């Protein structure tokens, strides 16, 4: 259990070291950032084995006993999210070694990147509600600065919009935490759950749930709150777009929402229904708006909104199979969406444009990028036997089993629309005749190629996660959510 604080210490430590020494020693920033993310990945994989033996691990920060002190909790859902986040960040850090040469200040980039990673890891491992808010803000502020990293006019505009909307959302979350503290007089997650089950749930718990849905829903880019995402994701550098779309919206939005709604506040029929409605609307709006885009990264941003709609829809159905499908789709989407954004980054690195109308036939000059984009697009559209097919299949089967026939049909139709716009992307960008302007471009450097190839390989093999050999990885995460308010008993048992 002593490895838990390392998930926050390692990125924070590397961030400060890089900011101090990054400019003076050559290549120090690259080396330290990649070593840091690699060690985090090793720790996350180790944490899976720890969770199999003891179901839940609690680390008490500073020796102050909870509920007065802060505790860090590692259970199935936390280790699942830790592996997702750290795997994607290691590959993105590897990619950024070459990609960020085009931007001016690499050490500052790595500092902000490791701070964002520290925030995300902190959100996943913490067991205290205000600590969650502090890490949420650390990650958010780092991401506002990272979206504006190129400091062109459009990037600043997108970052300003994102910062204002993100701050309003964080204020909603803080208001919810204040109200929850006033009702239960404690901030520890397990203790809040205990107090709420002793008192009867008044109207205030419904108000708090709505505040959290609004606040975390904006971070997750659910549909009424999605307006920042299509501007922020294209404007960021490609590595940051991959991080934002791949892991950031899932950690800050979906994971925090799940932890609070499933384990602390408890769910009722109305909240499940709201989650299904938000999921369906996100799916439809994201897909329909994605078809009309001409900019590659804007199309991917709308596609992210649509896929997050799938995840929330699956979580809203609430049956064990649906939650399994939702979490599996979360892992898959982290992998293939970051792969697609890294591909768009390599197209931009080679050709300096992102406009689909000007690209054409790049497969002849950029073969690795073409093949990995093909795998990523086929996986996200749900073509068997790639990973996306299995997760979408599980979600749709779970929807039909629960009786939601209409919404399952909508999910299938949205999947067909997803295939349509990804085929449009592949057709315009890679296949067809090579445009004369692109005769002289070369393939991207080896660090970028390595990250994309590894992600494409994971895209293909992660379909195996459903097989009985690897299913415990997902199943332990699902069991935590199904445990619901039993989370508090598990934490208190582990504390003794």
């Amino acid at each position: 259990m002593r490895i838990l604080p390392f998930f926050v210490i390692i990125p924070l430590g590397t961030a400060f070291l890089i900011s101090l020494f990054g400019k003076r020693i050559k290549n120090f920033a690259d080396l330290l950032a990649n070593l840091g993310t690699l060690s985090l990945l090793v720790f996350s994989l180790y944490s899976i084995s720890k969770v199999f033996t003891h179901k839940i691990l609690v680390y008490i920060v500073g020796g102050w006993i909870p509920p007065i002190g802060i505790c860090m909790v590692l259970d199935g859902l936390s280790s699942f999210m830790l592996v997702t986040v750290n795997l994607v960040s290691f590959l993105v850090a590897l990619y950024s070694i070459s990609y960020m040469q085009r931007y001016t200040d690499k050490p500052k980039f790595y500092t902000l990147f490791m701070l964002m990673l520290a925030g995300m890891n902190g959100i996943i491992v913490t067991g205290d509600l205000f600590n969650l808010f502090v890490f949420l803000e650390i990650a958010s502020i780092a991401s506002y600065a990272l979206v504006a990293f190129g400091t062109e006019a459009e990037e600043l505009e997108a970052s300003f919009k994102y910062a204002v909307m993100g701050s309003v959302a964080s204020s909603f979350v803080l208001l919810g935490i204040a109200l929850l503290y006033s009702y239960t007089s404690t901030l520890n997650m397990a203790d809040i759950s205990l107090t709420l089950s002793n008192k009867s749930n008044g109207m205030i718990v419904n108000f708090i749930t709505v505040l959290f849905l609004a606040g975390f829903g904006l971070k997750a880019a659910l549909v009424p709150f999605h307006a920042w995402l299509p501007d922020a994701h294209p404007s960021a550098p490609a590595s940051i777009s991959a991080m934002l779309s791949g892991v950031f919206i899932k950690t800050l939005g979906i994971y925090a929402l799940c932890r609070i709604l499933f384990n602390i506040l408890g769910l009722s029929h109305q909240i499940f229904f709201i989650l299904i409605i938000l999921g369906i609307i996100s799916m439809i709006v994201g897909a329909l708006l994605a078809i009309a885009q001409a900019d590659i990264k804007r199309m991917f941003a709308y596609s992210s909104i649509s896929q997050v709609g799938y995840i929330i829809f699956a979580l809203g159905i609430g049956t064990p199979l649906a939650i399994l499908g939702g979490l599996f789709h979360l892992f898959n989407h982290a992998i293939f969406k970051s792969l697609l954004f890294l591909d768009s980054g390599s197209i931009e690195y080679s050709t300096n444009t992102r406009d689909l109308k000007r690209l054409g036939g790049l497969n002849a000059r950029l073969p690795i990028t073409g093949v990995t984009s093909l795998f990523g697009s086929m996986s996200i559209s749900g073509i068997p036997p790639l990973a996306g097919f299995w997760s979408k299949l599980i979600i749709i089967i779970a929807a039909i089993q629960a009786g939601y026939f209409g919404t399952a049909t909508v999910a299938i139709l949205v999947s067909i629309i997803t295939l349509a716009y990804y085929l449009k992307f592949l057709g315009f960008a890679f296949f067809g005749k090579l445009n004369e302007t692109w005769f002289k471009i070369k393939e991207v450097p080896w660090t970028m190629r390595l990250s994309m190839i590894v992600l494409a390989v994971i895209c293909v093999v992660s379909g195996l996660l459903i097989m009985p050999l690897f299913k415990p990885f997902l199943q332990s995460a699902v069991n935590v959510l199904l445990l619901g308010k039993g989370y508090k008993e598990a934490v208190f048992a582990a504390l003794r």
Partner: protein
Amino acid sequence: MSEYILCLVLFCIGLYCVLRKRNIIKIVIGLGIIEYAVNLFFVLIGYRMHGRAPILAKDQVISNMVDPLPQALVLTSIVIGLAVTALIVAIAIRIYEKYGTFDITKIRRLKG
């Protein structure tokens, strides 16, 4: 009870400012008002009737102190608000250098 309602009214005033004002600096000020409202609400939650400052001395009894925990949390929250304000003002200054105006209806190059 009325002070909590007034805090929420202050929050709504800040929210109106963020939504309806056209000048970027006014939007930043509105964001500041929202943060003040939430912090004030959080501190007021800690109030106990006839409570006094939560300082532990030898002969004092604990039961009539106000709650010190919200005060500590609000300190953290004020610092977070400071960081966000500093970042947003820096972005706003750079926007003025690039676009030449503070009017958000003219800063609309990203659409669709």
